[in-house]
């Protein structure tokens, strides 16, 4: 019973941590972008201010209940997903789910967003969702191949086991050193899943007026902002857990997370955007090939 209580506490605490770290990740993203564009960038607390500002706006436009529910699902799905990601000292309910579960749980926010946007009846939004789902179809294929390879390699889908195995063996047994090809493919998939340039086809401000966000303002946009920070956190932590041995302690953990995230962000701000079919083609070609080669290495 005590254990259950502890788990519940962890489940409550983990999303909060994730939220904070996620906001800092957003900050890092903006800072990096600014540096690359030779700007100064926002101050330290800017993401917090943004969230508070968005929630505090006077003009809040709702297109119906589903519009609201969509945002709730988007945030709530990630809140739940964070409890499946073990961080140093807290395992949450990671042993109740596993990576396959996590992969599917992270689809709930997207689905919620899609529902909310659909309710807005704005064609730009719908087009954005169509593109978002397409890109999901694109990047999920290498993504799940990578997951398969890792799970097969460690003989488990339980993230705790995976992390323990890596930490027990040191750097040499980290996923990245045992499965370098998969790690590269995973990075690709991670990048694509973030929806940043060059894969930001569903935002596409110039063509479809930022796509899904077109009808979002105030706390709706705030919800999406929170969702984005969760998304950055989830992606990087998952990558760290799979390939970089997870976090031995909070410092290394955070270092690894931010480092992992820095790579796609830097790439993102150096490249222009792809067209939808180019994205699909690219992602289905190289990362899938890499991932399959990686799996072949793992399985032999």
């Amino acid at each position, binding site marked *: 019973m005590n254990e259950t209580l502890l788990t519940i506490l962890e489940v409550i605490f983990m999303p909060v941590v994730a939220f904070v770290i996620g906001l800092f990740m957003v900050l890092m993203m903006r800072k990096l972008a600014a540096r690359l564009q030779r700007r100064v960038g926002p101050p330290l607390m800017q993401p917090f201010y943004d969230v508070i500002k968005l929630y505090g706006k006077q003009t809040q436009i709702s297109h119906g209940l589903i519009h*609201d529910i969509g945002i*709730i699902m988007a945030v709530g799905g990630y809140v739940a997903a964070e409890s499946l990601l073990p961080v140093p000292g807290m395992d949450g309910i990671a042993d109740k789910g596993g990576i396959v579960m996590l992969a599917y749980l992270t689809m709930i926010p997207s689905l919620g967003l*899609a529902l909310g946007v659909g309710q807005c009846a704005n064609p730009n939004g719908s087009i954005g969702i169509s593109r978002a*789902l397409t890109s999901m179809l694109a990047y999920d294929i290498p993504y799940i191949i990578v997951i398969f390879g890792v799970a097969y390699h460690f003989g488990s889908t339980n993230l705790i086991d995976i992390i323990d195995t890596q930490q027990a063996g040191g750097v040499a047994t980290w996923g990245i050193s045992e499965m370098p090809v998969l790690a590269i493919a995973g990075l690709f998939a991670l990048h694509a899943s973030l929806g940043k340039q060059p894969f930001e086809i569903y935002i596409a401000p110039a063509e479809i007026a930022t796509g899904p966000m077109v009808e979002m303002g105030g706390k709706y946009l705030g919800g999406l902002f929170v969702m984005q920070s969760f998304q950055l956190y989830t992606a990087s932590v998952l990558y760290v857990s799979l390939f970089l041995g997870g976090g031995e302690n909070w410092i290394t953990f955070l270092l690894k997370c931010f480092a992992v995230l820095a790579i796609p962000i830097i790439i993102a701000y150096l490249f222009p955007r792809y067209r939808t079919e180019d994205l699909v083609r690219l992602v289905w070609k190289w990362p899938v090939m890499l991932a399959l080669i990686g799996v072949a290495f793992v399985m032999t």
Partner: protein
Amino acid sequence: MNFLDGLLILSLLSVIVTGFAQKLRSAGWLSSVLLGLQCLLLMGMAGLAYGSPAVSSSFSVSVLGQPLHWQFNALSWFFALITLASALASSVYAAGAWGEDYRLQGGNPGLLQFALNLNVFAMLLLLASGDLLSLFVGWELVSWASLLMMVLAGGAAGRFGLRYIVYATAGAMAVMTGLVMIFQLTGSFQFADFAAIAPSLSNAQVVTFTLLFVFGFGVKMGLLPFHLWQADAYAETPGPGAAFLGAISSRMGLFAMLILVIQLIGLGRLINIEVPYSFFSLRDVLMWVAAFTIIFPTFTAMRQNDARLLLAWHGIGQGGYMLMGLLMVNPLGSAGGLMHVFNYASYQAVLFLVVTAVIYRTRTADLNQLGGLVTRMPLSFLMMLICIIGLAGIPPMNGFVSKWLIYRSLIVEGMPLLFVASVVGTLGTILSVYKLIHNTFLGQLRLEHEQIREVPWSMMIPMLILSAVVFITGFLPGIVLDWVASAQAALGIPVLEHTLGGVESPSGNLDMIWICSVLFGGFAVGALVFYSGNKSRRVHQLDNYAGGHFLTADDRYHYSNNFYAGLMHHIGHWYRGTFQWLESSLGSAISLLSAATQMLFNSFHPALFLLLAATLSLLFFAG
């Protein structure tokens, strides 16, 4: 007189009663009551699902010296439960307001109920079959009973039904050949006799039997490449009938295949047979067939513009998961496959019923003619949402659990490509079900649909109950897994160790109770955060950002046609219609052949062929 006797007799009785009561106005309710009674009798045998020994009927028939008898074990019970539950739901649905409406449209709801009862009876007979002969009799009855259901609507339905029966007859012939071969080997039609000689069969015989049975039963399942009949035929079936057929009819093929290929021949034999010049075993080949059955129909579904067709195509694709799971040796996979039968039936029935509800109100299922109905039919929307989450295999609905079991077993067995194939299928499903719900319920409401109300309760209640099942068995998958485990035991394959919330194994656990609780906790947090912000103002749907243009209700800007334009730009040219082409080529070939054969009969000289025949046959003997 045990429960099984009672069930079969009552079922037969229902067929007769509904057959004679067709013209009655209350035929629908009568049929529902009868089906309900059958459900009760089935519940009387619920012990089967928790380890009771198999029940044999107390009557048997002997034809040409071959006894036919019937029995129920946990597997039959499991399938019968699904059958009767979906039949009951469809029957109640059709009995109320929908039936009235159907009558006004010129249909005969009594006939529909009769067809429903006939199908149920045929299926129960098949599920209860205790030997190969009764299996085949049941099998054929199921085939023809579902033909009756399919052609009820008339018009194009007749054409599609005809197409179905061609496939079905071909399959039946293959099955019959297999059975006759077994009979020649064993001298009887008993399962036990075949099981006894199965280990001593030669590889060639095993391959022959497997191919014959997989073809024969696979036709009904819609296995590639014999799937073309299914979507059209189901889509044209009147709503509740389509829900019933879609939910369970095709699974009869799976059931029969389970009995013959997995239980009697055994997967062990299939794994040991190598396909020459490749590194595949026969089992792998079948698994790849299942994988292609997942992918191709799912992506075909994505392109459909008719809600019924979209669902029907998905039905074919989901069958692939079941077969794939069941072909896995480990208990996870087979449990996943069996559980998927249940899960799939629960949400597919609701989906068809919701689509029928939409048709009931709007008179169309064309995805380009709908939109924005969520404000008018919110409950229907909710149920469709629950069920598409199930269909797409996303937590927390039951569809996820069974798919999770299948994925896990693929990982454990180390089958990356099949794993990818099954996940690709799931992704395709997500894409297309979003299209379904978006084009139907979201987006702009059309002017002509302003006055639409939610459907009556007689239609709503079956949907509500079934979607509750979808949710509850997602939350507590252990309920179904109990039955599945008993069914596995009845099949004689390894039994899955499970808990109420899911599975616990050294290589990864699943506990849906925790996951769901946390997920809904997360939603609560999300809601808390959301509603802690400033109160939002409801605006009219048309009051939105439209590039500086003021919209009126006359502007149709619901983005529905060619929904995945970008994706189709890339993969569109992969839709070659190869199977359609193959089918129509076969049709043309037959047409050509028959024209050629008729030319012989149209020859103006009758005796020329006699001369030829005489010469050739003399050459044959004397030459």
